[in-house]
């Protein structure tokens, strides 16, 4: 008998000849929480997909022992029956179905003849909500009524309902607000006490440090080390992950700040489904030449909507005006925005950033193809030269520029999307969560690039939910809360507490 709940031995998984995993070992005790760390593309998600039989047994080499017996699962259903449940980074809920229906999707309680037994299901769902300290959720309402944080917890309820003994969480907090993250972490600790083991994949080392007992680092498909949490400092973990030392996470550089170049006045956005509700409420601000303006706030505060309105792509009704160098510019579509010199790198890379089937190169030149064309015909050599220049200068790792971009890791996709928005030579660049789901190394490169740009006189608006990032990079910080401008701070001696207090509307209390 093995002493472990789970033991993975020598896992090797190759994609068309390239080894994504090269002999990984992982052991988990019952009730243990393991933090799995590594750069994007290191193989974390692949390893978890092997474990949960997204890649069925036989598709990879090595062995998995579950409660002492070898597990040869061919389908996700088999692993779930064994008690291994994975919660993916992108939530897998059906928005139009109710909370209850989502929790029981695929495991419905039925009466004779396959008729849904709603009474029993609602009752069980209610119990789960109370167990997860969310008694306010109405389990009969559609999931789309609740925000990202609650949806994450509903996913966990779904997993618990399947009697999970091992929970795999892939970047569970990447779209959560601070308070939602708090609740999630508390619940994870709670589950641990009840004997549920978990594997947590995350880039947020402080969260891993809080909940995990053990940390396991992989790099380039290889197992680098597994140590008790207490033995390692954050710096040491980062060093293990990237294989090099990053002394300073934020390569802040001095740069001159000029006159006001851009102004947004009285931006108001109305909710698409509920036109009475204001998502952004009369926000005005200025931006100086060569300035990095951080926009902080909780998820759902209206920051992305503000950016979309400026870029001319807010889907609902919106008002307000935009001025560039003192002159009002008319922006009602992304096309007009790009032509005016305002570019946006969107938050949702998969949906709004990349064109998956196009090559990396063509993604990069998507917004400026006219520049290489004579009477509509593209000069491909000239284009290829520009592509090569961007790939080199942004350090985008790709086998060839014609490789479809969907094959790249998240960090490299993000760099390509940024490159696409640099080619129109923007005067104002809006970056919406530029480092979300991006590994430490790529983050560092993106920050460096931002400083290079402001030195050349580009002005940057950076929306970010990570306060250390906002404080580490910005010259000035705007705080948005519930659609309103709640604070405008020069970033000198500014603390996370001050920003957070403003975001939740407690600034006066703090000042008093």
């Amino acid at each position: 008998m093995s002493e472990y709940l789970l033991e993975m031995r020598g896992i090797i998984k190759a994609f068309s000849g390239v080894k994504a995993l090269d002999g990984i070992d992982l052991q988990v005790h019952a009730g243990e929480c393991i933090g799995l760390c590594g750069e994007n593309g290191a193989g974390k998600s692949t390893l978890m997909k092997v474990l949960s039989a997204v890649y069925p047994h036989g598709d990879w080499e090595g062995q998995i022992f579950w409660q002492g017996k070898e597990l040869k699962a061919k389908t996700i259903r088999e692993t779930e029956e064994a008690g291994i449940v994975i919660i993916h980074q992108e939530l897998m809920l059906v928005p139009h179905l109710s909370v209850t229906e989502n929790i029981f999707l695929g495991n419905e309680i039925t009466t004779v003849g396959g008729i849904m037994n709603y009474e029993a299901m609602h009752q069980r769902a209610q119990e789960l909500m109370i167990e997860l300290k969310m008694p306010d959720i109405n389990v009969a309402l559609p999931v789309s009524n609740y925000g990202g944080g609650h949806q994450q917890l509903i996913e966990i309820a779904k997993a618990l309902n399947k009697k999970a003994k091992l929970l795999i969480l892939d970047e569970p907090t990447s779209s959560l607000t601070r308070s939602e993250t708090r609740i999630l972490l508390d619940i994870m600790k709670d589950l641990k006490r009840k004997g549920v083991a978990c594997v947590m994949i995350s880039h947020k080392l402080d969260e891993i440090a809080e909940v995990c007992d053990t940390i396991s680092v992989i790099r380039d498909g290889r197992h680098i080390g597994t140590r008790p949490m207490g033995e390692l400092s954050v710096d040491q973990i980062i060093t293990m992950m990237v294989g090099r030392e990053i002394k300073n996470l934020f390569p802040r550089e001095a740069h001159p700040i000029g006159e006001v170049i851009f102004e947004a006045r009285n931006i108001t956005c109305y909710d698409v489904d509920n036109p009475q509700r204001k998502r952004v409420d009369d926000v005005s601000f200025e931006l100086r030449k060569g300035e990095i303006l951080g926009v902080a706030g909780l998820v759902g505060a209206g920051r992305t909507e503000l950016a979309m309105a400026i870029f001319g792509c807010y889907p609902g009704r919106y008002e307000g005006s935009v001025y560039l160098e003192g002159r009002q510019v008319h922006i009602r579509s992304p096309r007009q925005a790009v032509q005016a010199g305002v570019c946006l790198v969107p938050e949702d890379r998969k949906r709004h950033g990349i064109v998956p089937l196009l090559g990396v190169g063509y993604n990069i030149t998507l917004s400026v193809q006219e520049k290489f064309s004579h009477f509509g015909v593209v000069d491909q050599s000239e284009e290829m030269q520009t592509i090569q220049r961007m790939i080199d200068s942004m350090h985008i790792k790709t086998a060839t520029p014609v490789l479809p971009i969907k094959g790249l890791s998240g960090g490299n996709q993000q760099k390509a999307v940024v490159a696409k928005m640099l080619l129109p030579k923007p005067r104002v660049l809006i970056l919406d969560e530029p480092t979300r789901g991006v590994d430490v190394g790529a983050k560092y490169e993106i920050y460096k690039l931002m400083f290079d740009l402001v030195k050349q006189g580009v002005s940057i608006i950076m929306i970010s939910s990570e306060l250390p990032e906002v404080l580490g990079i910005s010259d000035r910080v705007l705080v948005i809360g519930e659609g309103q401008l709640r604070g405008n701070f020069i970033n000198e001696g500014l603390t996370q507490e001050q920003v957070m207090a403003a975001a939740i509307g407690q600034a006066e209390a703090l000042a008093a």
Partner: protein
Amino acid sequence: MAATVKQLQRIFTQYKILALLLAIIAIWAFFTWRTEGDFFTARNFSNLLRQMAITGMLAAGMVFVIIAGEIDLSVGSLLGLLGGVAAALDVFVQVPLPVTFATVLLLGLLIGMFNGYWVSYMRVPSFIVGLAGMLAFRGVLLAVTKGSTIPIESAGLVEFGQGYLPFMLGNGLAVVLFVVLALITFRGRTNRRRYNLSVAPLWQDLLRLALLGGVIAGFVVTLNSYQGIPIPVFVLLIILGVFSFVARSTVFGRRIYAVGSNLEATRLSGVNTRVVKMMLFGIMGLMCALAGLTTTARLAAASPASGNMAELDAIASCFIGGTSMRGGSGTVLGALIGALIMASLDNGMSMLSVETYWQMIVKGSILLLAVWVDVLSGSSER
């Protein structure tokens, strides 16, 4: 075992066109054997290509529409309508031939753009817009022809459907085509070298050119040994050349693929995606006009039933030719080879006097199988 299947899959995905050509060779070999050689004659080859030309024109337009993630079900009815208009202009109004051509082509473009306007600006799903057009255009055609066939006499129009290119012209064009292909190849090589990009070994390019030359020569010699290159086939070849160029080398072509693969990301990159979509349907309309003119010319009459179910042949050709059902990938050449496969089946089975109902069953099965093979090869996975 598993490894060989994987390898086969990879080869199929990489050389999809090659797989299609193999399918054609198999089909031709089968019919040649069953017809004791009658299938594989210059005369039948000429007929086969002429039959394929109309479906090919529609498929060439349709492949762009499908790559962009849309569909157009109205093309059969629009073909019939525009063919009817051509006949009406020729017989009732008796305008000169160039005026008939110009009017019908312009009308096709405008009606196509009208469809596109409803899809891209009014945001009605293209499936519905197509269905509506399928009904409405057929209705207008019935009104124009008053439900009866309009025979045409204008020799010029009939020549467009039934005529051949003079031998010398065919030979000359083949030589010009080969020289152009050679020039493109060598210009590409020098350009790539100038920009320090990797250049394929010379023998590879030369071998490719030699193969292409062989195909062109074989094609022209075979057709000339009968009566020459049929004019509709010549038109289709020009469309193939122009459209392939548009797809590969123009801003518009690139945008078709981008729009089909991720509409939102393309729009947020500052591309006017609505214009792209509207123009795609415009091109589709233009192809309907050409196909309508060819149909009327070939039959020397406009029938109220012409173009019936032509949309299905065109769509099937695209999918057999490896166009992705979810948009974002596909080629004009593939779609035309798909059309050639469909035409070969039609032609061969007719020669064997297979009953019509069997022909339909066989074509339906082939479509299902072809797309299944495509799914197996993993090319439609995201």
